């Protein structure tokens, strides 16, 4: 007999992996279907909850009524974020911050990016013009130009380490080796540092980053922090790796790199998705499904000249009908109505206007999310992912008449 998962999560980004982990911890047998590395890997690794104002939770209360955050309570948001942070901390990637306080991390342009929850390696980040920072860069690092920072924060010092031909990915891998690390620390010993803090592009290894940061702090007796970089972004990849490893530890099954070919329905239920493969199509059966395939960049939403569609289930998509109005006139400020495009859901995160009982939708594919304008990407993905997971659990409970899941932990 074919295997039937309790839940099949489609999409392996923040929303999908977060939901999958929660479901697995509740005892569900979970599969994740993902086409490849999510755009989470391109992100700074910082969790933006709402990048306007000083208190994201207060700001959320003032968002337009259609925003997906309003589908859950403030308590749920706090609980979901705390749950998520606890999971990645267990996975070896501790974060700091509170959803009631925004912070500003220094970017490669020398300005402060407003965000909320950040990896501990960025905890000491500061973007104050009066800061006294010593930037350590690497010769030839393509997308990192310390002069941007030095010009905006005048007291900035700079040292450049010669590590041969470099990229952020290469440096992170190098830092994982004791030999490179030792050489770097020795070089640092000979560097005259008088500034209050040390800033380094986010390349301090993969899963050892925190340990390496502490070693540098010990060596220099100063707080050290990482500066998130443009893609490939090591800090974003660390977060993805941590989530994925956590998911694997919890027994979650991954189907990677294969696009979904067909969706199989039975009445009001999705029964399975089949994946394209070199030989026979792979069939992934589930009792419930979560769709978390992201917006346009991730490929969850597809735009053509004729309009916007959803890529897997062909769900009805809300979008501004006239293409001429999709984008505002200006790049700054980015007021683009196309950001409203997405799937409309009910309070249970089921897609509206179709009758599918066992499908739940989460993340930036949701209509009115406006991730770029509001700066709410990862936060909204985590919260709606958890919310969709809990609706999904409720559904499974009812469907199994009290028996939560087919497998017990």
């Amino acid at each position, binding site marked *: 007999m074919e295997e039937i998962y309790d839940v099949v999560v489609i999409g392996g980004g923040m929303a999908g992996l977060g939901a999958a982990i929660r479901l697995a911890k509740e005892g569900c047998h979970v599969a994740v279907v993902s086409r490849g590395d999510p755009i989470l890997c391109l992100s700074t690794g910082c969790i933006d909850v709402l990048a306007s104002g000083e208190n994201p939770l207060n700001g959320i209360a003032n968002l337009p009524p259609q925003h997906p955050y309003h589908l859950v309570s403030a308590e749920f948001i706090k609980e979901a974020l705390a749950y998520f942070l606890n999971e990645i901390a267990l996975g070896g990637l501790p974060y700091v911050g509170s959803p009631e306080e925004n912070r500003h991390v220094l970017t490669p342009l020398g300005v402060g990016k*407003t965000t909320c929850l950040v990896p501990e390696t960025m905890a000491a980040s500061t973007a104050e013009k009066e800061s006294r920072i010593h930037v350590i860069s690497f010769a030839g690092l393509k997308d990192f130009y310390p002069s941007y920072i030095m010009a905006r924060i005048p007291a900035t010092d700079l040292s450049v380490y010669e590590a041969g031909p470099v990229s952020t990915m290469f440096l992170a891998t190098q830092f994982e080796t004791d030999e490179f690390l030792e050489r770097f620390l020795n070089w640092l010993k000979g560097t005259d540092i008088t500034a209050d803090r040390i800033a380094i592009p986010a390349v301090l290894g993969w899963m050892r980053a925190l340990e390496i940061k502490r070693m540098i702090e010990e060596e220099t007796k100063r707080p050290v922090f990482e500066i998130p970089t443009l893609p490939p972004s090591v800090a974003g990849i660390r977060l993805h790796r941590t989530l994925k490893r956590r998911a694997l530890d919890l027994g979650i099954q991954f189907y990677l790199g294969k696009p979904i070919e067909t969706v199989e329905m039975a009445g009001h239920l999705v029964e399975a998705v089949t994946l394209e493969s070199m030989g026979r199509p792979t069939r992934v059966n589930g009792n419930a499904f979560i769709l978390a395939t992201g917006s*346009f960049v991730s490929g969850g939403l597809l735009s053509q000249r004729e309009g916007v569609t959803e890529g897997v289930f062909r769900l009805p998509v809300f979008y501004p009908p006239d293409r001429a109005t999709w984008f505002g006139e200006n790049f700054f400020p980015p007021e683009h109505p196309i950001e409203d495009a997405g799937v409309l859901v009910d309070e249970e995160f089921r897609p509206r206007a179709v009758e599918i009982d066992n499908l739940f939708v989460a993340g930036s594919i949701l209509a009115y999310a406006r991730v*770029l304008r509001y700066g709410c990407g990862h936060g909204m993905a985590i919260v709606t992912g958890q919310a969709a997971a809990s609706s999904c659990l409720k559904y499974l409970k009812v469907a199994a008449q009290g028996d939560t899941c087919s497998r017990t932990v």
Partner: protein
Amino acid sequence: MSMKSKTDVIIIGGGATGCGIARDLALRGVPHYLLEEGDFARGATGACHGLLHSGARYAVSDSEAAKECIEENRILRRIGKKCIEQTGGLFVRLPGDSKKFRDRFLEKCEEVGIPTQILSPSRALEMVPSLNPELEEAVLVPDCSIDPFRLCLLNIVSSRRRGGVALIHHRVVDIVKERSRCVGVKALDLFTGQVKEIYGKIIINATGAWGDKTARLAGCDVPLTLSKGSLIITDHRLTNMVVNRLRPASNGDIIVPNEAVCVAGTTSVDVPDPDEARLEPWEMELLIQEASQLIPAFSRARIIRGYTGVRPLIRGGCEGDSRRISRSFRIIDHENGLISIIGGKLTTYRYMAEKVTDLVMDKLGLKAPCLTAEYPLEGQEELSGYPLSKRLENLNEIVCECELVGKREVEETVNRIGVRYISDIQHRTRLGMGPCQGGFCTYRALGIIHNMGRISIEESRYILKDFLQRRFRGIRPALWGAQLREEQLVEGMYLRILGLGEE
């Protein structure tokens, strides 16, 4: 602080005509200044489809223009090898297109001396496999693809080598008159804010669509009708030959391969102000639809940008004060030291320059023959050319992945021309001209220029923001599919990673 200079001839406008006049004057030994408000080729020169006409397009409607085109086509192919790609062109007749028109077309081409060759559908498809397979026939003509920006630069090389001065990013704010004669101009250096006074014996107004605005500075009129033409660019070449529709000229009847991309155009809409012309959504739809009839793959091609140029067309009713040399362009002697040149097309820029310069020589009482058709454009020997093999030679540090521009090329360009606007570097290196339209590489290029100590951070952040804003206006009409995806990624990078716009 003001700065005064003296010369013989002042040219206003750095399009093909202005640059062509500068070269012509230089070869005849006449001192001159050229002033351009933006970069070279900023107006219609840079915003056309980059076609070196064979003249066939005009054969039926205007045989005089067609004749000028084929003659200039031959000259430019000879003197400007490095800025012209001899693609050849096809006029494609689709089912329903008039056969009568085709007969007239062939007849008229022969009359004015444009070589043609009739191709069967299968032969045409061999030459351009992406053509609509339903075609009835095609006619081969010597259309070429031309790089208008390079053309301007090469003309300026001759000027500079002979002491000519060309100032870009200088806006002429006033034409100075003495006893009702134009004797000089005041030019505002848009970068430093300094006003420069330049005095000369003759001032030439070669500002194309801005011709009337410029003439008004001297209290003169130039009768212009402004007609905008919009074009769209694909992310790769869908054809290696110019493809025209064999029917009377109308919207969307041409596709031109240019470097790594294809340009399809054009529309024709009267506009009141050249600075306000924009590509409208309906034009985008129409151009895709029409181009898809010639090359079906166009309907699914990735459009990376759209743009609009404004044609300065002659308006009748100024007889007596102008010398009619051609139906397609006109030289107006305002009889007060100012000469305006209007109309014309990129293909005939050299001929127009020759006629203007003839008049200038006359006015100055000088005698020297025009040599611009005799010698190849200077400076071509220094051009590496765009072939991939050439670009791969020094690609240790790629700055622009789309167009394979290396760090060294950016640095060399900055050292050579200085840097005021990122677009100046883009025009000269093709940095940021590919699918991402500079989304990734502009930040890098500015970082490099910054490291070279050539600009302050305030300048670079201003330049970056300004660039992103202008870039966005160009790609905005083309945002769907892959281009929309890329745009949201770029937006995310600048807003959510780099924090640009946070202060």
